[in-house]
């Protein structure tokens, strides 16, 4: 070995040793407060996004228009949702985090805000979001009344079906639970699977059934309290939800637990399965030629005395408390939330979500108009299981629901295990 390479090795060794000394241990303490930054750091605003599909092109249109204004540049990093969701806590607690993030409104955002990880965006709301609904403001606020989230768009859930297949089967979209069950039996009698879902790789979709049955049977107020941990899953009201779910088990595709999302979409578009409880995102999965044939109906009413509420998951942006470009971040969010920004975002998104800004102009197709009207007439909207309960609570829910589909007679043990996991997760966080 030459002298030179020995010297190089020694330097590397020292550098590594210094890194150990400096990096210290994993910081298990709280995040602490953000430093008061007076002037933005140089360089582009880093926007970390979980969208890789149709939503991405909408976001790109907004960024392009913002860049043209000359206030600063935005750098978009798009990651697959599963990667993004897993890494988000690491981003937010790192020393030099990305500045802006796409995220879910509600508890999922509050979990981070409670730890002081998010930038207070109240002045953005005061300055530019005056025309937003008060429901959206509440959804974007922490328990202490600060806004930490700027919503961008929301979408609806419904029971999707193919219009031509329904015609062939002689079915008109049912309005009540009893009609729904009757229609399912009619569909099944003709050799078609009434209900499908892609649970083998997207088991979270089963939570949509839980959410909607709970909303229709016990109402939104109880549902949100249950998800917030104020009631037990091992209780009489939840048993009522599972009793209703048991009614549809024979109508589910017999291989539902082994069906992938792609397979389930193909089953729906080829007429092997008739109905699919899904969010508007399902529209982009169906081949373009068949999209015109796609329709959806509101989740059937079970108890007319329960006020009708709907799922309306709201997406938007939050900013790291440690951003070094707070002024630019706020300017970007104001633009993204403006009527112009919203129009660019939504028109790039292929008609699967709705603008939150009432003055935005959006090209609406028949389904988005129907979705918007449905949500506007709802007495209350909820987000979705993981957004209302906190993201970590999704896994035990998936376990309980898929196990119930396979072992409906094991309900007691399933609910007991679900409640125990939920409590353990809350205690551990």
């Amino acid at each position, binding site marked *: *070995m030459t002298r030179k390479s*020995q010297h190089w*090795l*020694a330097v*590397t*060794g020292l550098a*590594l*040793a210094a*890194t*150990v000394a400096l990096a210290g*241990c*994993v910081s*298990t*303490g*709280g*995040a602490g407060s953000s430093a008061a930054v007076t002037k933005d750091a140089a360089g582009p605003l880093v926007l970390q996004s979980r969208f890789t599909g149709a939503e991405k092109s909408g976001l790109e249109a907004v960024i392009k228009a913002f860049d043209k204004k000359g206030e600063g540049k935005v750098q978009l990093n798009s990651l697959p949702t599963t990667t993004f969701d*897993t890494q988000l*806590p*690491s981003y*937010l*607690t790192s020393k030099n985090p990305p500045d802006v993030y796409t995220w879910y409104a509600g508890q999922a955002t509050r*979990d*981070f805000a*409670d*730890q002081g*990880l998010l930038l207070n965006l109240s002045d953005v709301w005061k300055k530019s979001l005056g025309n937003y609904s008060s429901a959206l403001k509440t959804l974007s606020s922490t328990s202490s009344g600060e806004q930490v989230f700027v919503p961008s768009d929301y979408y609806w859930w419904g029971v999707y079906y193919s219009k031509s297949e329904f015609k062939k089967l002689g079915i008109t979209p049912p309005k009540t639970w009893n009609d729904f069950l009757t229609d399912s039996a009619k569909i099944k009698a003709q050799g078609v699977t009434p209900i499908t879902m892609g649970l*083998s790789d997207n*088991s979270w979709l089963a939570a949509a059934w839980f959410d909607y049955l709970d909303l229709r049977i016990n109402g939104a107020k109880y549902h949100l309290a249950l998800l917030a941990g104020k009631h037990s899953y091992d209780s009489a009201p939840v048993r009522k939800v599972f009793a209703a779910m048991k009614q549809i088990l024979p109508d589910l595709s017999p*291989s539902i*637990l*082994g*069906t*992938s999302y792609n*397979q389930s979409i193909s089953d729906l578009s080829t007429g092997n399965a008739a109905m699919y409880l899904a969010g508007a995102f399902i529209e982009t999965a169906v081949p373009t030629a068949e999209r015109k044939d796609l329709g959806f109906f509101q989740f059937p009413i079970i108890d007319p005395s329960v006020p009708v509420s709907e799922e309306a998951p709201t997406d938007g942006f939050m900013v790291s408390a440690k951003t070094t470009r707070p002024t630019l971040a706020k300017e970007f969010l104001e633009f993204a939330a403006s009527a112009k920004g919203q129009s660019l975002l939504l028109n790039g998104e292929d008609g699967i979500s709705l603008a939150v800004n009432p003055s935005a102009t959006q090209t609406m197709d028949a389904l988005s108009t129907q979705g918007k009207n449905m949500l506007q007439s709802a007495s209350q909207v909820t987000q979705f299981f993981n957004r209302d309960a906190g*993201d*970590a609570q*999704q*896994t035990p829910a*998936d*376990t*309980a629901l*898929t*196990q119930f589909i*396979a072992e409906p007679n094991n309900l007691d043990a399933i609910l007991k*295990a679900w409640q125990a996991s939920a409590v*353990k*997760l809350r*205690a*551990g*966080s």
Partner: protein
Amino acid sequence: MFVLVLVPFVIEAVGVFWPAIQGVMLSVLNWNGIAPAKAVGLGNYVSLASDPIFITALKNTAIWIVLFGGLSFVGGLGIALLFQSERRGVGIYRTALFLPIVFSLVVTALIWDTFFQPTGILNGLLNAVGLHSWTHEWLADPSTALYAIIVAALWREIGYVMVLFIAGLKALDPAIAEAAKMDGCTRWQQFRYITFPQLRSVNLVILSVLVIDSLRSFDIVWAMTAGGPFNSTQLLSTYMYSTAFQGRQLGYASAIAVVIFVLALGVIITYLVRALSEEKES
């Protein structure tokens, strides 16, 4: 010369020792990665003992080691014995069996996932030969899912073990086998008393490779079932991952990691002690 020791030591310290110590330290905390951590002492270990998913994962890991490790060993050895001699066309068979090793485990998972789908090739074949009642949702039924994944994992591992055994068999002195044959040994006797004992050192290497491969199995399970349906295919490794990154319970997940570490360490120490004592004997 000091530098030559220092550099690997520092790299090892930064990359292995320090994270390992951190892992043990984390295992006595309740921490979700964002809020301040709470010290809970041995609380995480106590909850592990009564956690039904952990017990399932432990049981599945044991099944995995026995079936995946055992069948890889037996299958690899059997195929190596079959294909050790140079005959015309044997190279094609060896290559075919070794071929799956070029796929990453995630790709292997994708291939077998398609094979096991409810409307996939396996059920198609069963229907074609009239065995309708044998068709199954292989990956969605808790009673078959783990075994279906083991089949996929074996498909890749057996070729690897075969190559190791062929290398071992080639190194044996053919004169001994020849002598045994002259003395009238049956094929079984020749294998049992001549070939197998000579493979002892190769066996030890393969056994330790298999145990380590079994304990670190994660990717193929995660890609095929992610531990589902309803946690029935969780291994210790997949349960650790889902606890840490889906449930955000970093302390609890670290406790599982410590258990995996202790198990792996136990295996390695047993192996080293045996290997060393046998070396002394000989």
